[in-house]
């Protein structure tokens, strides 16, 4: 098995004339927590959607455990879990049915066992068992994120994707979610790929940070290396300044 869990080479995806990913290369090592940072509209979500097969890249290669996944008909999602930006819970199902969706749908577990397992994982993410029977619409944003996390980790995936996990949360709840991400990923020994523009979150959960700009990874390294780096793009992004080489399209 190669050391890289995910290997992306020359990934290209355009929407009309807009090149979102432009011959991008990226490696995610086995067991590491990689955080991809970048401004809004730089293609972070497109990257994650291409890896998951939700979007088909125009060209390039994505390998998971050495196997090409672009254009594959195999079910690549078995070993993946994903926490969506807005949690993306199914509002027609109760909280526990959301969490246990995969167990009921794929593993054909009995309802009773699936509910017990869902309650166990809900507890793991800090939610009381009585939340299980509520509908997702009755939960706060932070609770929805926790349920989304529980749904992502219930089948013990090897890779977990986090799409802007702290967006829309207050700073304290954001930190709670960061802690939960670290705990659950460590507990499972999973490889994680997070996309965010929240630097506090990136610093906390990343083993390695990569910066996406104009469809390419322009810098990657550890948090320490990031603080020492004199890459002007990276410096501007970290400091959140409107002056610098990065020009925002308005």
């Amino acid at each position, binding site marked *: 098995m190669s050391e890289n869990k995910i290997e992306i080479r020359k990934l290209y995806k355009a929407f009309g004339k807009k090149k979102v990913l432009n011959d991008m290369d990226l490696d995610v090592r086995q067991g590491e927590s990689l955080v991809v940072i970048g401004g809004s509209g730089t293609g972070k979500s497109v990257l994650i*959607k291409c890896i*998951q*097969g*939700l979007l088909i890249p125009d060209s390039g290669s994505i390998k998971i455990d050495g196997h090409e996944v672009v254009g594959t008909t195999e*079910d690549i*999602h*078995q070993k*993946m*879990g*994903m926490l*969506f*930006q*807005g949690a*993306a*819970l*199914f*509002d027609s199902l109760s909280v526990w049915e959301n969490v246990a*969706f*995969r167990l009921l*749908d*794929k593993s054909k577990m009995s309802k009773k066992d699936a509910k017990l397992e869902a309650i166990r994982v809900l507890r793991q993410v800090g939610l009381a068992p009585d939340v299980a029977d509520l509908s997702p619409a009755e939960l706060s944003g932070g609770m929805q994120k926790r349920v989304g996390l529980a*749904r992502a980790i219930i089948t013990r995936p090897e890779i977990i994707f986090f799409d802007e996990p702290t967006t829309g949360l207050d700073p304290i709840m954001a930190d709670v979610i960061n802690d939960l991400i670290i705990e659950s990923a460590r507990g499972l020994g999973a490889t994680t790929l997070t996309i965010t523009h929240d630097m506090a979150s990136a610093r906390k959960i990343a083993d390695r940070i990569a910066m996406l700009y104009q469809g390419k990874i322009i810098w990657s390294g550890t948090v320490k290396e990031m603080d020492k780096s004199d890459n002007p793009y990276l410096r501007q992004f970290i400091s959140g300044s409107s002056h610098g080489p990065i020009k925002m399209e308005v």
Partner: protein
Amino acid sequence: MSMNNEKQITAKMMSFVQALGKPLVAFIVSLGYLSQFVAKSVYNCFMPPFYVRLLGRQFMNMGFYSLPVVGLTTLFAGMVIAIQTYSGISKYGAESAVATVVLISVTRELAPVLSALMVAGRIGAAMAAEIGTMRVTEQIDALVTLSANPFRYLIAPRVWAGIIVMPLLVLFGDVIGIFGGYVVGIYKLDFNPANYINNTMSNLQSIDIMTGVIKACVFGFIISIMGCYHGYRSKGGAQGVGEATTNAVVSSSILILIFNYLITEMIFSR
């Protein structure tokens, strides 16, 4: 004529051709997407897993909860036809004519078409809104990441419900519509109840009922497919979902009227 004038005319002609061409190309592209969607939906209708619980829920939504609206629509349609036939055709021998015309028009046309249009407004819109909201809140993406095929989970139960439930609704509409004609015939036009029922029963032909049922199957398919298609392809938040809902109702209503003509011609023009 100066060169400038010629250039202006050419530019105007080009913009006219562009104005014509753009929507035409957009129409052909969306027709392509629709064909692909229909093919994928039909294929996935026959592929396991079958979500029986979801199918049951669609049966309830589309069938049981549509009974009042279909009943009311066909009841009044039957009543109107009875009065119109009486006043329009002939007052002599009207007893037989009214019963026959009510029977034929309700079973062949009014029950299937009016029920389908009402269900398109009620259910087609709801399907587009629900699936559209799932699309814009990434719930459909979430289904894929949880290894569930959205076509089998979301579309197939709705398509099956459309094909199975619409004929049942139309049979119900047939009974209520004929009853509407009977009520007007007896209480307004003073017909003899026994004669009216006798006239209705003696003119009842299986081809009339079958035509309605065949139409209903096709209309049910159209309602579900158009509701799902517009919802599935919606984008851009609340506005996009709103547009999807409108498009679903308008397109399915137009298709229902077109296919109604085509099926009628196929069966009766010989």
